[in-house]
Structures are given as C-alpha cells and as structure tokens.
C-alpha cells in the first residue's frame, strides 16, 4: 500500500496521459474499429514516456529544476516560446475536454444535462487546486482512477477468445474495412497521447512539489515503472473490451456512454459503478494535471514563483493562470462544443511541442553541471536517441495524416 501511495505521482501523471476523457474514447474507438492491432503503439508509447519521464524526474530530483525551466534555459526565449505556445494550447484544449468530461461522467449517473454540470465541475477543480495539499490530491485522484482496472476485470469476465486477441496483438494488420491512412492516424494519436508533453511538465514539477532530492531517485523509478505501464494497461483493457463486445456488433464508438456498455455486459451494475467512479476520478485527475501544467509551463518560462506547496499568495501569478485557464475552459464549453472532439486538435500542436520538449530533457540529463554523477548512461542515451527519431517522425506525420483522413472519420 505504501509503495502504491509512493507511486501516486506517476499513476496520476499516467492517467492524465493514457485514460483522460479524449483517450478513454479514442481507446474504445480504436478497439471497436481495429481490434487489438494497435496495441504495439501503446507499448511503444509506454516505453518512451517511461524513458523521458524518468529523465525529467531525475533532473528535477537532482538539480531541483523542473522541465520547462530546463527547456527555457537550453533553447532560449524564442524556441522555448514556440514550445510554450504549442504546449499551452495542448494544455488548454485538454483541460477544456476534461472539464467537459467530468460533466459527461456526471451526466451518465444523473441524467442532468452536461451543460449544468460544467460550472460545478470547474469550481470543484479550482477548489482542489486552491486548498488541497499536493500529496492528498494525487493520492485520492490517482487511487480512485485505478478503479478503471474494472475494464481489465470486465475483459476476464467476458471470457474472450484469448488466442485470437493474442494473434491480433502479435500479428497486427490493418482491418479490411479501414484504410491504412486511418490506421496510421490512430497509431499517431495513441503514441501522441502516451507521450503528451504535459505529462513530463506535471511529473517533473510534481517531483519539485514533493521535494525530491538525489536520494529519492529510487522513488522516481518506482513512480515511472508503476505509473506508466499501469496507464498503458488500462488503455489496452479499454480497447480490448470494445474489441470483444462492440466490434462484432458493428458498433462504432462515438460517445462516453458506449464505452461502459461492455463493462456492464460483463460485470453488471457493481462493476459499472466502479468504472464510472474511475472515469470520474480519471477525468478529474486529468483536469488537475492539465490545469497545473498550464500554470507550471507559463511560470517556469517567465520565472514566476510557482507551486501548490506555496501559499497561493506567494505564487500569485501561478494561481491566476490556473483560474484564467479554468474560466477559458468553461467559456469554450458553453459554446456547446463536443469536449471529445476538442482533444483531437491537440495532436497538431504536438508536432511542435514534442521535439522541443524531449530534446532539452535528453541534453540536460547528460549535463554534469545539472546532474553531477547522475548523468545518463549509454543505454539510456541510445534509447533516448532512437525515441527522438520516432518522435520527430510522428510529429511530422501528424498534421498531413489528420488532414488526409479528416481526423480519422
């Protein structure tokens, strides 16, 4: 239990990356259209985010510098500014989606129109940001988010043809009903979701919030190795339940209400309730993660005082950023935009943000001025280099594929 609590930062970070509202639906869409033939992308993404989150956490623990400070320092004001614009846009789009997602989850259990829940959800998020201690926030949101494990339980209860599922995972192919361009669009969307930059912003800043030092590097490893694989597992479980129940029925997922149907079919009301609480906690956690990330990136770029561990008045501009972000999110949602469609836009900004985020992390993790004797080893650098290539290719391919496929429709 203590181990799990110690990994709460990693778990919450991963939940925001892998199973936030946009990804909950994307995972189910992928499962209902492609079966498990895209699981390899999730694995690729899990390894990549483990690698770079580990580096960013290590830099934060050893030098006390969070990721966007490092980006600003290494890239200078212009390139870092471009990254800030793109990352901030991703944060804001995702935050908007999450606040809408909380409302959608509440709609499932109450039948009260989501629009009425939106201001309530935003206010609740703000109150947590304003009052709650960082550790309590991450423990509650992280642990309740783990109820999404219900999807994995549902998969076992459904008793699928395991041989067939394994075959889909190990011998991936594009289903006949889908075009390769759409397949690759979803591959990049899944990879981008796994590697989304706000995860490292949140993770490294969280390490500073928790006051990690060089002696806490073991804790960094536990967080990374528990959190992100767990996030990947949840993501695959969601896709698998959709593949087993919805794909054969000819159902294409377009809304949150559809993704819980396989769970109800497998485990009835009790499992359904657990999963809905999990969805609520995951979207709430992702809303916390993205709103904090928007504060962290802006404050770290401009050198403002930041952090939830400070009294709000001692990090005034940081807290003002959080408030403004939430207000903007609510305002956007009030135009009746579909919160889930909003997250698809963020793929475009990833093209700028991904390379400009991960290159500085890799470079600083090698700098003895920051890291002392904790610089990267050879294996880490070799893997990091390979992933940089993958990231750049994915980032460059994202926009053309998105336009060519009409965002996967």
């Amino acid at each position, binding site marked *: 239990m203590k181990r799990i609590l110690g990994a709460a930062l990693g778990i919450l970070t991963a939940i925001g990356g892998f199973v936030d509202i946009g990804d909950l639906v994307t995972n189910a869409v992928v499962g209902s259209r492609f079966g498990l033939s895209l699981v390899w992308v999730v694995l690729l993404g899990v390894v990549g985010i483990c690698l770079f989150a580990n580096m960013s956490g290590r830099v934060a623990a050893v030098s006390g510098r969070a990721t966007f400070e490092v980006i600003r320092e290494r890239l200078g004001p212009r390139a870092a500014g471009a990254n800030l614009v793109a990352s901030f846009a991703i944060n804001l789009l995702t935050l908007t989606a999450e606040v809408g997602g909380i409302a959608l989850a509440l709609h*499932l259990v109450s039948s009260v129109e989501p629009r009425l829940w939106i201001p309530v959800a935003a206010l609740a998020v703000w109150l947590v940001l304003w009052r709650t201690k960082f550790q309590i926030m991450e423990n509650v949101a992280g642990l309740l988010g783990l109820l999404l494990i219900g999807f994995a339980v549902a998969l076992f209860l459904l008793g699928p043809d395991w041989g067939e599922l394994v075959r889909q995972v190990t011998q991936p192919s594009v289903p006949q009903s889908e075009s390769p361009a759409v397949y690759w669009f979803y591959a990049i969307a899944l990879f981008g979701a796994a590697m989304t930059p706000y995860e490292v912003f949140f993770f490294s800043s969280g390490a500073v919030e928790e006051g990690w030092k060089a002696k806490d590097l073991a804790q960094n490893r536990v967080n990374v190795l528990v959190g992100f694989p767990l996030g990947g597992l949840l993501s695959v479980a969601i896709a698998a339940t959709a593949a087993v129940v919805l794909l054969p029925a*000819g159902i294409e997922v377009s809304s949150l209400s*559809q993704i819980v149907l396989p769970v109800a079919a497998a485990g009835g009301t009790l499992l359904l309730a657990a999963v809905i609480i999990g969805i609520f906690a995951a979207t709430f956690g992702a809303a916390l993660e993205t709103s904090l990330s928007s504060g962290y990136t802006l404050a770290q770029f401009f050198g403002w005082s930041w952090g939830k561990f400070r009294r709000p008045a001692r990090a005034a501009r940081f807290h003002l950023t959080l408030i403004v972000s939430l207000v903007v999110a609510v305002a956007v949602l009030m135009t009746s935009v579909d919160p889930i469609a909003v997250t698809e836009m963020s793929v475009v900004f990833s093209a700028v943000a991904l390379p400009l985020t991960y290159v500085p992390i890799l470079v600083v993790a090698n700098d003895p001025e920051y890291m002392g004797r904790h610089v990267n080893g050879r294996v880490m650098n070799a893997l990091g280099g390979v992933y940089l290539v993958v990231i750049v290719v994915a980032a460059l391919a994202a926009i053309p594929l998105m336009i060519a496929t009409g965002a996967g429709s």
Partner: protein
Amino acid sequence: MHLVMSQAAERGARVIAGAALALAGLVAVPSCTVPSRQEPGQATAAVRDAVAQATSAVETTRLTLRLFDDDRIPSTVADTALLDQLRVLDEASTALTTLVPPDDASAAHRAASADAVDGAVTSVVDARAWVAREAGGNLSADGGVPTSYDELASDLTDVADGLGQAYAEAGGQ
C-alpha cells in the same frame, strides 16, 4: 529544430505563425460528419457512411436495451446512451438530407437510406420512452410506447435489417 540562432527572430516568428496556421487549418477540417459529395461513386459512398453510422446507433440501442432489461445498467446510463445515439442518427440524417445526388441511382439509394434512418430514429425514440416508463415515468400504452422489451427488440431487428438492405443496395457488403 531551433539550434541556429542567426535568423532566429525570423524563425521563431515562423514557428509561432506555423502553429497558428496549423490551428486555423484544423478548425477548417470538417468534423466526422459526411460532407455532400458530387461524383456518383462518392455520393453512394457518402450514403454508405451515413447508413453505417445509423447501423452503429441501432446496434448500440439494442445492446443498451438488452443490458437494461437484464438489470445490468441503471436507467440513467441507458437514457444517456440512447440520447447519444439520437445525436448520431441526427448526424447521419443530416448527411443524407444535405447530399445532392448527381444521378438517379444515387438518388434512389439516398431515398431508401433516408427512410431506413427515419425508421431508426422512431425506434430509438420509442426505446427511450420505454426506458423512462420502466424507470417509473408516467407514460402508458396509450402514449404509443411499446409495452414490452420483446416488442421493441423485434422492432429494432426490423430497423437493422432495413438499414442492412440499404447498405447493400448502396454497394456495401
């Protein structure tokens, strides 16, 4: 990447402008509704897409009703799921009504498909009313609401068959 700082001011501005342009382009990309298409083959493909969407909605409705009848989902979840399907059907129906058929064949496909989708809308509306009544609403048989799950289920089977037929006529398998 931004390692070269000589023309950096220019480049930084270009990167930011590029991001803004990308956003503008993205907003212009239509969402997943089916646009009206002009070529005969494309028009028929658009009809197929809309019918596939409607089929997915009807199948979701069948699954939802079955789960509700088995007491596996509460009425709130069933109601939300059905409401979401009405939205999907609305999209499909809009795609069909805004389509300008370029020839007689695609016009016939469109008319048949539009009828099938209309039938689907009626069934899902009925299903929602039935869920509301089962959950303790004030609707009676006089409101024209089907009284039993079996009646609804066979209704939906007919609708699904109709859609399947429209899909096949429009060249789908």
